[in-house]
């Protein structure tokens, strides 16, 4: 692993254990098993990519960690603390685990600066002046200076995503939960966003739980990649991407990267076919 990641001030925060989690949806009497005895270990400061076809139940897992949904059995712990499990079916949402949403959730009625400041202002632990200074320095770090007075609607979707990630980092979270954040972006913007995300990761060393259906994205960003089965969702194969950070976009043409692609694409393709045959819808 790269030296800069070893020297992580946040190291030891954001270690997540998912243990035998089961989630059954029961919308109209017909029980649908979304997640089936799913177990996964995510080390602190790791980028863990969850790959699976659309609608396989990946988001359900994310929602359980974030505390938006309950689970039926099993448990999820973070840094030794139980988030949800026996006796507490639903985790409490909090600023230690911040979600970056599929369609973006910057508040359109607040400008970029107010969006950035939202979390710390809610927490009320810092003075407004301090928060503002932090926001400006984080925006400068992420190359977002000059956007502070814009409303999200005035920014390109790529910039919006970056703002949303930095808004999350303003709260010093233990883990960032990203739910296909680059889904709507074109592939050129996407590759720029990937490098920007890694850049943010090198600087902040936060654990990242990243959901995607794009295998190349997963292998490029992740140091752990979990390929999930189609509904019900559980890891089919978990592999470590042994390509050192920092990675540049050129990595994708390396032999090692292509080997990994070859090794895994068959697995993903199988699941995609299964999901297609089952008629799963997007989501």
């Amino acid at each position: 692993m790269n030296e800069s990641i070893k020297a992580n001030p946040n190291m030891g925060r954001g270690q997540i254990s998912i243990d035998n989690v089961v989630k059954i949806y029961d919308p109209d009497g017909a029980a649908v098993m979304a997640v089936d005895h799913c177990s996964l270990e995510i080390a602190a400061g790791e980028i863990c990519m969850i790959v699976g076809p659309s609608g396989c139940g990946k988001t359900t897992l994310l929602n359980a960690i974030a505390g938006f949904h309950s689970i039926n059995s099993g448990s999820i712990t973070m840094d030794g603390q139980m988030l949800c499990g026996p006796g507490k079916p639903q985790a409490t949402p909090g600023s230690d685990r911040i979600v970056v949403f599929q369609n973006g959730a910057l508040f359109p009625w607040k400008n970029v600066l107010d969006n950035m400041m939202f979390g710390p202002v809610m927490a009320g632990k810092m003075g407004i002046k301090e928060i503002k200074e932090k926001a400006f320095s984080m925006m400068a770090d992420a190359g977002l200076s000059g956007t502070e007075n814009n409303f999200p609607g005035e920014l390109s979707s790529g910039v919006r995503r970056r703002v949303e990630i930095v808004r999350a980092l303003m709260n010093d979270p233990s883990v960032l939960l990203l739910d296909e954040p680059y889904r709507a972006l074109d592939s050129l913007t996407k590759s720029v966003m990937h490098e920007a995300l890694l850049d943010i990761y090198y600087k902040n060393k936060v654990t990242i739980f990243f959901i995607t259906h794009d295998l190349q994205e997963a292998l490029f960003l992740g140091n752990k990649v979990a390929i999930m089965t189609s509904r019900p969702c559980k890891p089919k194969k978990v592999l470590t991407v042994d390509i050192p950070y920092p990675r540049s976009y050129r990595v994708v043409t390396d032999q090692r990267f292509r080997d990994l692609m070859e090794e895994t694409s068959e697995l993903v393709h199988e699941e995609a076919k299964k999901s297609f045959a089952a008629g799963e819808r997007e989501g």
Partner: protein
Amino acid sequence: MKNSNDSNPTAKQRQLSFEIREGSLLAKILSPRLFLMLVGFILFLGFWHLAVEVWRLPRFAQMPALRTVVTEILSPNPTYGISIFVGEYYQHILASCLRVFIAFALATTLGVPLGLFLGWSTKFREYVFPVFEMLRPIPILAWVPLAIVMFTSLEAPVIFLAFLASFFVTALNTMLGVESIDESYFRAAKCLGAKDYQVFWNVVIPGATPFIFTGLQISIGVCWFSLVAAEMVSGQFGLGYIINTSYTNVRYPTIIIGMVTLGFIGYLTSAMVRAVGKRLMQWRMRELALSGN
């Protein structure tokens, strides 16, 4: 039409170049929008004139002619008593405006919070919404007898009726506004550590604002509508009162004057609500401007 070719024009060049600034009075006069609006008015008034005085259509036999109405409204000594030179005219306008103002202000201060809570709290909605939905479809005119019985003064029943119509529209639109807010904003706020009351201030209220203002525009319209209805039934002053008494006293041009005045003032109040909305929703305006609307 901006002279943006030269990045640094000299003062003289700038002076010489003839430019129509966006938003200037001249630009407004020359815009095709104003021209089309004028054409629309001319066609409408032209039809009125022809139908009454030239073609003498049977349906329009009792209708006062355009010329009659214009001379009446501009006359210092109006035949039927009401023109822009008569103080009584303004008394009626003032009476109606004051009632609408009170009714609309009350309806907004009560309707918006009610709608916000209806949309936000499921429990509150389960208590209140069924009653609300039972009362809402009752036509305002059906409330007239009860209003007169409930309120002893002359003003209060009229204001109450205008308030009622306005209130239901505002509350309903506000509720729909809260329901229209994407779930992910609530989740994001929770993730970022907002407590319930903070979610209410930072997500529910601003998120519902576009719907609230759409609602307020409809609300000011129905406020005028029900006010005039109420004034026609029970009133001592006001534009609805003029229209009704002019009908019973066969002063037909005055009816038209009352109607035109209502149209004009109704448009003005609606524009005022829209302007306030635009001021409060800079983010929305900029977003719409970028999407080309």
